[in-house]
């Protein structure tokens, strides 16, 4: 036997050794990454840059958003390019993560200590993630940045950027709710589209006229409070309700003042279920509700007149130009019941957030601040998105005001008076508890007062758990 011949055993040994080598190499400690830029000490001198002297090469900033296609993606990529051109310190790499997955992926990557440096999210994330240490405190960066001007933000928006006085998010845009009404459908039913109602009862009357039924089946909806989804904080605000007391850290939807309002609100929802049938309305919703009732398709329920009136945020406005250019429609602020001094609904905000464990929080902050402050972004990103820039100075630019025909009305009549989404722990859980309560009222004939009490009690338990940890 030739001793130089490679036997099968030798081959297996060699293969095994190679595999073991590969495994060891894969498990080995990676080369030390560049030190993350340290957050500056709180209350640093405003003129000093927050980070150490800038290195020659730009630092990479990983950005996650869901803007993957269409006009919003174009605008996002344009903003990234502009930031990269302007910044001598950072270069942003934009990674598209579908909106439906972005939160799960942020959570997983934060736990794995490998999150993006900044991501695009919403106001509720501040309340949900800041108390459990899921976000980087941006206060030191903001304090050290002379161009960060808190007074320039809409007060309600600034409130949402903060949790317990610290800044955890930088807002790019602010969203309020409109009541959208289809003028074509109203004309069909003989409703005067120029002299529209001013109170909730008036709009409900119009809504009832716009229904088209086939026996019990609902073919066209006039108005349903829970289409496209429950908005109990917002509808509660129209009746003057409040949900959170920041001083006592208590959920107050069922205190002496607010309980009658919410019980009335639940009964108002129930009235629609009783009149048109919960199942019949649900059948309509199941059929047409995909992708917010088909907002991105000309066959969507709103563009085809199957929905007469609905309350939704401003971002729907520009979808009309693209998918329903022939639909004649109008918008108004969320109405209050007759004789009630309520607020014109709720307010929430689009945010840039820097997760905990971010490798480059300074870069994350810098990009978020750029998106919230740069006039080019306001004109070229917020206007196509049909959302109001979050800073007064950018929102009142002539190009913004001409691009968003409703902006002046929103700035003068809505933003100063709305109820901001409370920056409280477990805020989305609180909304979820109330949604479950009203669902039980609609489907199981449950007692609204009892359901409300139970929902608030459970929400408060969630809050208390988080507050102990914060």
């Amino acid at each position, binding site marked *: 036997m030739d001793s130089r011949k490679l036997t099968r055993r030798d081959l*297996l040994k060699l293969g*095994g050794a190679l595999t073991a080598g590969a495994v060891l190499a894969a498990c080995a400690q990676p080369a030390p990454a560049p030190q993350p830029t340290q957050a500056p000490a709180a209350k640093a001198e405003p003129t000093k840059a927050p980070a150490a002297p800038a290195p020659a090469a730009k630092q990479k900033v990983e950005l996650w958003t869901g803007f993957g296609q269409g006009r919003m993606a174009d605008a996002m990529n344009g903003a990234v390019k502009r930031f990269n051109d302007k910044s001598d310190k950072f270069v942003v790499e934009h990674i598209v993560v579908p909106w439906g997955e972005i939160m*799960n992926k942020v*959570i997983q990557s*934060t*736990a*794995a*200590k490998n999150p993006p440096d900044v991501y695009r999210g919403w106001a509720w994330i501040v309340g*949900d*993630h800041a108390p*459990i*240490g*899921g976000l980087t405190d941006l206060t030191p960066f903001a304090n050290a940045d002379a161009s960060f001007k808190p007074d320039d933000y809409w007060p309600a928006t600034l409130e949402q950027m903060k949790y317990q006085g610290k800044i955890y998010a930088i807002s790019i845009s602010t969203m309020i709710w409109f009541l959208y009404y289809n003028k074509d459908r109203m004309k069909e039913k003989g409703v005067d589209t120029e002299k529209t109602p001013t109170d909730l009862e008036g709009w409900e009357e119009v809504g009832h006229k716009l229904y088209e039924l086939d026996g019990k*089946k609902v073919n066209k909806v006039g108005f349903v409070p829970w289409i496209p989804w429950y908005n109990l904080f917002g509808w509660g605000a129209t009746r003057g309700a409040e949900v959170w007391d920041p001083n006592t850290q208590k959920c107050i939807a069922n205190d002496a003042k607010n309980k009658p309002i919410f019980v009335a609100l639940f009964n108002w929802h129930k009235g629609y279920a009783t009149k048109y049938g*919960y*199942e019949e309305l*649900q*059948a*309509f*919703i*199941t*059929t047409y509700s995909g992708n917010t009732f088909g907002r991105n398709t000309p066959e969507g329920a709103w563009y085809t007149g199957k929905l007469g009136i609905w309350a939704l945020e401003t971002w729907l406005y520009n979808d009309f130009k693209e998918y329903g250019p022939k639909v004649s429609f109008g918008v108004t602020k969320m109405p209050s019941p007759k004789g009630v001094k309520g607020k014109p609904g709720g307010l929430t905000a689009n945010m840039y957030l820097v*997760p*905990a464990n971010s490798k480059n929080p300074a870069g994350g902050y810098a990009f978020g601040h750029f998106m919230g402050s740069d006039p080019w972004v306001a004109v070229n990103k917020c206007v196509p998105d049909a959302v109001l820039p979050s800073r007064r100075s950018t929102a009142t630019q002539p190009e913004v005001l001409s691009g968003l025909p409703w902006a002046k009305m929103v700035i003068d009549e809505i933003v100063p008076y709305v109820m901001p989404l409370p920056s409280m722990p*477990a805020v*989305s*859980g609180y909304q979820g508890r109330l949604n*479950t309560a009203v*669902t*039980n009222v*609609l*489907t*199981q004939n449950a007692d609204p007062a009892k359901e409300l009490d*139970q929902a608030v009690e*459970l929400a408060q*338990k*969630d809050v208390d*758990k988080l507050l102990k*940890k914060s």
Partner: protein
Amino acid sequence: MRLFEFKKQRTRNLFWGLFFVSPWIFHLFAFLVYPIFASLYFSFTDFNMLLYKGDWIGLGNYRELFEGDPMFFISMRNTLWYSFLALSIGVTVDIIAALLLNMKVWGLAAYRTILFLPAMVPGVAAAMTWVWILNPKHGLLNAMLASIGIDGPYWLASPRTAMISIVMVTTWASGQMILIYLAGLQDIPTHLYEAAEIDGANAWHRMRYVTLPLLTPQVLFNLVMGSIGTLQEFARPYVMTGGGPANSTYTYGMYIFHRAFQAMRMGLASSAAWMLFVVVLILTIIILRSSRRWVVYER
């Protein structure tokens, strides 16, 4: 000397044997043993998903499940109801399908393929397709019912019919169970039927006293596997209804998912998962214990 050589050879073989199964051993420990014990530990902590740490809180999560969260009971009730419906309807329909497929008729292979095909369709894709088929306004099924003058139900849109609709889809995709019954049927010795015929048994008697008793081992197997599978059900209701309408299809799997990845309370989710394990264990023991009375093994 030879004994020493033999032992050396055995040690070498053992080493190489372990070496070649080491990927599987690594997989077993990394992705099964460790997660099992980790989740048990997490269930006694307020584990924070984002920071990947938690403090020991003893039985706090288990107490919260029973004292604090109505969704826990809703999801448990829905899951038990789903499991009961899926298993009772599934066993009946699957046995009937297997009996039909066991008949000597023309085109048998084609029928068997047709009935097994749904089991090969990826679950989520099938669920999405059924969402369209069951659409109350424009769905295929209601259109077909309307063509023969029947006003179809609201299927997934109604709290009354949503769960049964999902059970229907589950039964549609149970080709593997049918295959097991079919194998069981073909394993029944023909001489038993011949003896029964000689004794004057008619078709019903043969079914009642020969076929069904000798099929009970397969029923037991499918019952145990089915109860484990249905109690863990997640994907189908998640895709088809998201747990609605009015939480009528909100299953225990969804409850665990939401607590873990939306409320980010991995500790609470882990305790819920362990509760499910206990329920599955008890149910399996009950089924196995009771099987001594009703399962017939051919001797």
